[in-house]
């Protein structure tokens, strides 16, 4: 059934349809609409789940680690400061191999206070052992949340479903809300592989000396590798029921492209418009949207970008001292090819600044005209700064 829905509500609908058992969350703008809608669902009986209104994000994730270890399906949502506060427990969730799903609304980190979109919060957690899926539309948010449970429960690792603050979380779009039967056809009931059980008493997460710790970590890496090989299978199953697929990356006219723009999140939508305009003008330009960031789909990236002359990666994030984070990953994926494109790294739109068609045009022009590709990231649209004296 099609409805005009906020991105946040698309998340909530998916959580309801996924028959989640325990939810635990702490409010932070711009995540609040997700948990408010879920509170409504729990209150009016549309979702039969326990909602733990804990006293912090740290406790929200800790509670879910407890619940998930006891063998039930779990969900939380957060953003920015809240995600940063959870950091220690992100490692606990993946180390304990728990299929927890989180909606993470990309928001800038303080100081100064800024509630607008910026990917540095989630990307700063890239090494925590969580899958990361970046979304572009309300429909994709709903679909990806369902897919997240499938992936999480298949490989026993947690997942972040990531959406841009406001541009996605608070934007209304037509979204097809599937029926419960459809969802059940794609996502079976959760069958935990291990759980706390008095009939089979085991110790979880205990002391792991050097003789066992490394194997445990290798298992996590293998599980991540498995995500890449199972992603297609997951999407086949999803496609049978829903007739849609997204791909871990989505290439648009990349085959004959000389220059390829690389984007994630809602910047992709604006880039689609630019790409079409430029093609109409006769430019051989392609667009690659990266949806799956962890595990990083390096093979697909190599296959699609390897033949281009130039690549322009647009990052709404920064690893200070290193630059745009998607650009680093793309460069790393390409570095062992004997012939490879020049990879330009652009930083744009931090703290919710608009990345307009004009900004993207400038990026394209610069990439096309520039013969020497700088190692450093190029910051787009910086204002002149007047320092206090």
């Amino acid at each position: 059934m099609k409805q005009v829905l906020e991105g946040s509500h698309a998340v909530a609908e998916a959580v309801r349809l996924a028959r989640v058992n325990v939810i635990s969350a702490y409010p932070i703008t711009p995540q609040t609409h997700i948990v408010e809608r879920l509170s409504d669902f729990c209150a009016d009986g549309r979702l039969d789940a326990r909602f733990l209104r804990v006293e912090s994000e740290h406790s929200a994730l800790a509670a879910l680690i407890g619940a998930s270890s006891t063998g039930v399906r779990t969900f939380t949502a957060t953003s920015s400061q809240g995600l940063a506060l959870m950091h220690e427990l992100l490692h606990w969730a993946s180390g304990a191999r728990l299929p927890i799903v989180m909606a993470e609304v990309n928001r800038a980190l303080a100081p100064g206070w800024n509630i607008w979109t910026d990917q540095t919060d989630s990307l700063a957690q890239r090494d925590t052992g969580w899958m990361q899926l970046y979304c572009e539309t309300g429909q994709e948010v709903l679909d990806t949340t369902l897919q997240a449970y499938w992936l999480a429960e298949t490989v026993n690792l947690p997942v972040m479903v990531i959406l841009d603050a406001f541009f996605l979380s608070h934007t209304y779009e037509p979204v097809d809300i599937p029926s419960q039967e459809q969802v059940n056809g794609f996502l079976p009931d959760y069958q935990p592989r291990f759980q706390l059980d008095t009939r089979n008493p085991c110790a979880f997460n205990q002391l792991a000396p050097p003789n066992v710790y490394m194997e445990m970590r290798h298992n996590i890496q293998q599980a991540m590798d498995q995500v890449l090989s199972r992603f297609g299978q997951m999407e086949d199953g999803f496609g049978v029921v829903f007739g849609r697929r997204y791909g871990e990356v989505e290439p648009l006219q990349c085959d004959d492209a000389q220059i390829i723009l690389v984007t994630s999140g809602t910047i992709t939508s604006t880039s689609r418009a630019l790409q079409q305009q430029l093609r109409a003008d006769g430019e051989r330009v392609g667009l690659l949207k990266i949806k799956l960031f962890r595990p990083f789909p390096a093979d697909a990236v190599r296959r699609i970008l390897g033949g281009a002359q130039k690549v322009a990666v647009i990052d709404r994030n920064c690893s200070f001292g290193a630059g745009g984070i998607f650009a680093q990953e793309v460069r790393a994926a390409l570095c062992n090819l004997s012939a490879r494109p020049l990879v330009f790294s652009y930083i744009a739109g931090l703290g919710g600044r608009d990345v307009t068609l004009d900004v993207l045009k400038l990026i394209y022009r610069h990439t096309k005209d520039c013969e020497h590709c700088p190692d450093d990231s190029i910051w787009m649209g910086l204002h002149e700064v007047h320092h206090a004296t």
Partner: protein
Amino acid sequence: MQLNVPDRDYMHSGHVGCPGCGAAVAMKFVLRALGNKTIMVLPACCWSIIAGPYPQSTLQIPLIHSAFETGGAMASGVRAALDVKGDKETCVVTWAGDGGTFDIGFQALSGAVERNEDFIYFCYDNEAYMNTGIQRSSSTPYGAWTTTTPGRDWKRMRKKNIVEALVAHRIPYAATASIAYPEDLLRKVSKARSIKGSRFLHIFASCPTGWRIPSEISVKIARMAVQTNIFPLYEVENGRKYTINFMPKGYLVKEYFKLQGRFKHLSESDLDQIQAMVEEDWELLLRKAGVPLQG
């Protein structure tokens, strides 16, 4: 002496605690009263080690080790999942040290108790961060040496009164207990197990290594803490009804202090001052319990 307590143990013989470890004694007794329909949440503390490395376990109940500050939160999640599964029989407990309770885990504990989560929180109190090498906590008593309160910088702040902090939450049941009084301890565990909502047990658990005492006087020291009124045995129901379980003869605190290396730097006048503090705390407790002050 024959103890009138259940004798089925849910701890295997053999653990890796120090000789005379009060925390190990406390666990043994508590599990006897809880029985095996119990799931335990164990934040970082000495017991993270005592329970044994992968793939072994000292305990015969399901155990989930957890981040240091998450005792209250993780137990809330385990409870929620059991509720969803319709398991009303299993008792969820947290087992944490004083650091994990008074300090870094206090927020999560306060949150869980404010929500009146249905679980028992056990704090075994050895009055410092022992796992990391005897650093001060807010449970470390006035006068104590620790590795972060060395030399003339011995701790000059009083021990936080954790039971009163929990009582301020109107917690259904809060009690103190000691490894030196096992019958009282087991009765309190059984009582706690029969009550719904949040329950808190504060167990005095001596630590030979950290307190600089010979291991064979571990239990004696715990008994003296009660007999000197340093660690009174009492319980509080619904944040209002106080019951003092043991009326001591009023031994002088210096007898207790003089046996422990961690207090050896204290002068007679320091000890007099501590005696006055202990008396003040005791009178406050008597007043709350409605017991007339003597003499």
